[in-house]
């Protein structure tokens, strides 16, 4: 049973568009949600994160929107660039259980 679900599995956008990646979770005890970015042949790298007490977190072109009541969050990539083409993992942390990852969304940005 996947505790962290991501959609879509893959996403294609044109350069300059906003990519929207979705994530939902089951466990109400999750209180910290990092997003990791992974390029082929590399390990995942922490991109941006949010605590459950916040509803929005911005870092440059990347924004997380968080809805605690619905147990949903999304990552928006504004002004998408070809260099943003990667797989993005939503993760959720419960200190007792550790970090649980979703299966990822593969983003392709075409010029």
């Amino acid at each position, binding site marked *: 049973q996947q505790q962290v679900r991501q959609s879509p599995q893959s996403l294609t956008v044109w350069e300059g568009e906003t990519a929207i990646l979705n994530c939902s979770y089951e466990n109400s005890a999750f209180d*910290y949600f*990092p997003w*990791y970015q992974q390029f082929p*042949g*590399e*390990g*995942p*790298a*922490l991109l941006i*994160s949010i605590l459950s007490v916040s509803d929005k977190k911005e870092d440059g072109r990347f924004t997380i929107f968080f809805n605690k009541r619905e147990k949903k969050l999304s990552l928006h990539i504004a002004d998408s660039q070809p260099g943003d083409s990667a797989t993005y*993992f939503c*993760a959720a*942390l419960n*200190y007792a259980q*550790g*970090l*649980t*990852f*979703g*299966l*990822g969304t593969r983003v392709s940005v075409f010029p």
Partner: protein
Amino acid sequence: NAGVIQTPRHKVTGKGQEATLWCEPISGHSAVFWYRQTIVQGLEFLTYFRNQAPIDDSGMPKERFSAQMPNQSHSTLKIQSTQPQDSAVYLCASSLTGNTGQLYFGEGSKLTVL
């Protein structure tokens, strides 16, 4: 600053052989994690050390898999009698203070079992 270093980057073994993967965490980081990554299962947690002590091995298959951290500068993941289903990318990560969710991953060791 060197990141997490994993060796080898690629390893090919025959069915039934042993595979040992090495990880050097970032200097000063107290926690080391091992994950397995496949297309189907995604990123699966295997085990976690803090200050070299094993804290959580709930993700480790009970047979054939073992992990150690003999000193603060390296950890090993050993798979005995490898099977084709063990083929995956094995990722090591470290974090500064423990299970914070802020992990620094290595580039991974891709294991192929023929």
